[in-house]
């Protein structure tokens, strides 16, 4: 008896502080093991999520804050930083280049996002029918997503070439004079938006399709009994049902549009960093790159980066307010 009690006693001491219940019939040196087991149980979740947070802290959060600090300095690469307070920001506000880039980011964002999401909605609706070869259409409209920004922009730069591009040739067949897609402001912005739209429409269509397939069938059946046309059903059942998904894609596309960089850069060729000969399609990201890596003014580039962050926060806030007021409207309608 005595020998068999010995390990139990030891185990009791180890267990005592936490007071966990112990199986008295268990005679193994289970004390250490159960303690290890509890540490294992408590600590492992943190061990598992640690890599993400370490990587984010090192390459996301710290640089983000440091960028904010740099935006208050005058600093060149490898040089000493010099405190300037909000100078970089007030210089931005006074700079025509900044307002031009902000306006371009906004207009290209609208031209590339609105038609893209509308077409994706239509495509998803079509794919939601019973059709032959659905797998083929899905993979086909997703192929642009597999194409890189650089490759897509290089191909489209050729298609949009003013002198020999295929798009001006096609326009010529229907009697439209060649459009100056590179040097004129709006044509250039439309061309760049076309690259974005081409790459992302199929992707968004598939996201909408997944949401549409989760809409319960009986809603449609009830509407059909009420004599609602298919178009009517699309407007008053499909759209409201997938609204959260639509909001989600709007947010994601807006975030993407705010950072637009590669498409205008490569579309512009040797003039890309400036956003064309007259900065007609220079976006905020391009201006930031130009300030930081061409001019070498890292403080000013940092200020532009932080303006982008503030913009995104503002967009997020607006989106939140909108969805809240929408929800209130719905409640109001239900009550009345």
């Amino acid at each position: 008896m005595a020998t068999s009690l010995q390990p139990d006693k030891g185990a009791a001491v180890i267990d005592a502080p936490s007071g966990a219940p112990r199986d008295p019939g268990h005679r193994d040196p289970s004390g250490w093991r159960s303690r290890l087991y509890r540490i294992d149980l408590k600590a492992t979740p943190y061990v598992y999520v640690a890599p993400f947070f370490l990587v984010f802290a090192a390459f996301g959060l710290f640089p983000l804050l440091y960028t904010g600090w740099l935006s208050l300095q005058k600093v060149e690469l490898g040089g000493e930083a010099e405190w300037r307070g909000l100078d970089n920001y007030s210089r931005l506000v006074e700079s025509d280049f900044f307002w031009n880039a902000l306006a371009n980011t906004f207009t290209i964002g609208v031209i590339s996002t609105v038609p893209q999401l509308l077409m994706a909605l239509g495509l998803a609706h079509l794919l939601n029918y019973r059709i032959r070869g659905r797998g083929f259409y899905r993979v086909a409209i997703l192929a642009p997503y597999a194409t890189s920004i650089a490759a897509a922009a290089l191909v489209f730069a050729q298609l949009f070439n003013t002198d020999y591009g295929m798009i001006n040739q096609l326009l010529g067949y229907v009697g439209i004079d060649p459009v100056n897609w590179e040097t004129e402001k709006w044509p250039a912005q439309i061309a760049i938006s076309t690259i974005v739209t081409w790459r992302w429409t199929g992707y968004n269509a598939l996201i909408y399709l997944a949401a549409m397939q989760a809409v319960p069938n009986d809603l449609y059946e009830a509407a059909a009994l009420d004599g609602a046309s298919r178009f009517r059903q699309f407007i008053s059942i499909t759209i409201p049902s997938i609204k959260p998904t639509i909001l989600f894609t709007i947010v994601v596309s807006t975030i993407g549009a705010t950072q637009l960089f590669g498409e205008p850069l490569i579309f512009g060729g040797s003039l890309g960093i400036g956003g064309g000969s007259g900065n007609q399609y220079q976006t905020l990201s391009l201006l930031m790159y130009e300030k930081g890596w061409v001019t070498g003014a890292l403080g000013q580039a940092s200020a532009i980066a932080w303006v982008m962050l503030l913009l995104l926060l503002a967009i997020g806030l607006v989106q939140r307010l909108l969805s809240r007021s929408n929800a209130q409207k719905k409640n109001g309608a239900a009550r009345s």
Partner: protein
Amino acid sequence: MSHVLNRTAAPAASATTGGRRRRLGQKAGRQHHGGPLTYALLVFAAVVSLFPLYWNLVAASHTGERVVQAPSPLLPGRELFNNLSIAWNQVDMGEALINTTIVAGAVATSTVLFATLAGFAFAKLRFKGRNVLLAIVVATMTVPPQLSVIPLYQLITEFGWVNQLQSVILPSLVAAFGVFFMRQYLLEALPVELIEAARMDGAHSLRIIWHVVFPIARPAMAVLGMLIFVQAWNDFFWPFIALTPDGAPTLQVALAGLGSGNHTVNHAIVLTGAFIATVPLLLVFALLGKHIVGGITSGAVKS
């Protein structure tokens, strides 16, 4: 594989569209057959999607002079292999292809591993601060890379890591999208009883990961791996800053270098470069497109 993926569609849909529609019939809303107009529009969409890729091949198979001549070539020419060998040897697309494969392979492998561990913890383990940490993970998805590149560039300059592949691999070792993706999958696919049973048998955490979590997560891990591989392959902004076309470029950086050459540049060679950068991914899509489509619609997150 696809039947397993269908299961992920449920939690993803509920995450983005609210819980009430969870697990309703997959066929809902598909009751009507498509008419001729439906097919006409779908064929049009497929042509618009595929034509630029086809024309990329056409342009890569002609001489530089032919590509810039007014009725544009519409059928493949005979110069493809000649162009390929010029692009491969003179512009070093071969080296860029190897670099890109290394970067995308390393990033995809480590993201899948770390995202599965974190996704498992968020989906199935209880710990203090879980919800707050998960909210942080999701919030980080909205922070654009523009906010980190300036300090990171200073850092890699200091370390002498400009044009070293680790400078583009390390920041991408694990991504919030992957963590969220794996959590959504494991939430549904992994029964708690299985973990409890393994614990009863005295399995420690590493054994549970290896013998329970990984086998069940495998289909989603494969899809996530492909998605991250595509993303890393096509990543542009940070590689463009950290690597230079004459140093150790990825394909995207090399293409940017090709495209910004002066106007005497040979456009057939430029587009051959684009072709080399695109074809490997198109092959992957042609072979595994269905699974990638399933992964995208279940993750429903673009990053």
